[in-house]
């Protein structure tokens, strides 16, 4: 029953990520499951459509590794640093391998709206957006509708229903009831929109812990296919309460990704050259001490009646 969902990252990726899938590894800066992206690279999954608001370094790595056929996104940069160079090379047709990367571009609200429509099983979501921009010209999937109440023209974006969404969180129970705090991004919507959901957590907890604070449950176990326990699974992204964002690494990525050979060596050493996230962490001595979170506990609340 419930315990059947707990499995290794290797098993979860093997079972739930297939060539050709539309894959979402969400998390807006926070709780991005790099460990899952790396396992997808190791298992040499191919022809994936990768969707995220910001591709972040994880999709830059997966694109460089040859996993992606297409990227659906809203902002493809390295925040505060510069470009995602593997992404750029692939889109500009300068990558060493294969045909140019296909892209489908929205805005942040557009991507949020795509997931919201997908989660609510609606065909589209209306937004008051895009008028005066060139985005609809670049993306014919952005359309318009006349409001049946006011007659005003609203933009619409189509629903996005991924094949699999991988969500990183602080904790969950064995049934997949998942609790998160800090920046929630659009993880909940992406999960509900998705055919399959893999939850990856820092800690596996008892059901009683979940039930002691139900407002903190963001994703219910009833939509979760697999639960993977993977401490440090989000590095270089972060997990509030567990570890800090590795801002130094994000800055260093500028140099690594700009040079295809250097990027290839990075993947060989830290993705292909390790069996799993534990192996990855062993290759980063001192990292845990440097990034481990300080303590800033919240005030507990009374759920009694």
């Amino acid at each position, binding site marked *: 029953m419930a315990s059947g969902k707990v499995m290794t990252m290797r098993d979860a990726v093997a079972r739930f990520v297939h060539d050709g899938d539309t894959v979402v590894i969400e998390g807006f800066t926070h709780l991005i499951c790099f460990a899952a992206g790396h396992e997808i690279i190791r298992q040499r999954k191919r022809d994936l459509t990768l969707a995220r608001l910001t591709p972040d370094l994880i999709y830059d790595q997966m694109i460089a590794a040859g996993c992606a056929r297409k990227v659906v996104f809203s902002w493809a940069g390295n925040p505060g640093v510069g470009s995602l160079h593997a992404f750029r090379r692939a889109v500009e047709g300068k990558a060493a391998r294969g045909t140019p990367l296909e892209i489908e571009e929205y805005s942040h609200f557009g991507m949020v709206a795509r997931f*919201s429509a997908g989660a*609510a099983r*609606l065909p589209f979501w209306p937004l008051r957006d895009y008028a005066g921009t060139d985005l609809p010209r670049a993306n014919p999937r952005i359309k318009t509708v006349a409001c049946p109440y006011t007659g005003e023209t609203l933009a619409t974006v189509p629903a996005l229903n991924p094949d699999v969404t991988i969500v990183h969180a602080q904790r969950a129970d064995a049934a997949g*009831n998942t609790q998160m705090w800090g920046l929630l991004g659009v993880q909940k919507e992406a999960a509900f929109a998705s055919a399959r959901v893999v939850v990856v957590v820092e800690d596996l907890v008892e059901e009683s812990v979940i039930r002691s604070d*139900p407002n903190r*449950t963001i994703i*219910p176990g*009833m939509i979760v296919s697999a639960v993977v326990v993977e401490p440090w699974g989000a590095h270089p992204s972060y997990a509030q309460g567990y570890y800090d964002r590795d801002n130094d690494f994000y800055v260093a990525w500028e140099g690594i990704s700009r040079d295809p050979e250097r990027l290839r060596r990075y993947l060989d050493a830290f993705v292909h050259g390790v069996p799993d996230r534990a192996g990855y962490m062993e290759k980063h001595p001192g990292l845990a001490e440097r990034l481990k979170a300080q303590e800033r506990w919240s005030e507990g609340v009374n759920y009694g009646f």
Partner: protein
Amino acid sequence: MATVAARELADGEVVFVGIGLPNLACNLARGTHAPHLVLIYESGAVGAAPERLPVSIGDPALVTGSLMVCGMADVFQLFLQNGRIERPTVRLPGSGGAAEIAVHARRTLIVAQLNPRAFPERVDFVTSPGQRCGGRTRRELGMPGAGPVKVITDKAILEADDATGEMVLAGLYPGVAADDVQAGVGWPLARRARLAAVAPPGETELRVLREVLDPKKLYLNG
């Protein structure tokens, strides 16, 4: 009624729970044969495990010890309209079934006491669509859920006829004759060729109902 309704619920199912008797039925099921029944209340409590019988769907007892508490937008968009929650979603309407629940739930069970005013031949105003609307089927109207499949009353069970969509007499409680049921509805009640004999509540069910769930007799009488 509570026991018969409770028996309709299988362990592990996901149920949207209405006020009134369905509350009792769902919690009885959870306390007996269906400990993993997942109760969802429109107020936002998911996986509720109330320690006392909630009087309303917004009772604080629904929050304490639940699996998840979310906003109402999430209840309707993500849990109900989403429509892909694997296990069948059952709705037991109480004194009022919300239109969207009647439209979307994979099947609906109605729990109500027989009374010709509560079961008129024709209602003046439809809030929860049944099997036929103006002669058209649910499928023709684009409704994803199967709608009301059973009506559980205090004397008998009615079931939706597959061909006509009409609620027909399907099972009788102990000591009840078919004519007793006819007296409680406002239209000529069709009946199945063979009427099932509905088993009365067992000892465990009675004990849970009387001693654990409803010692104050909010719903039970005698």
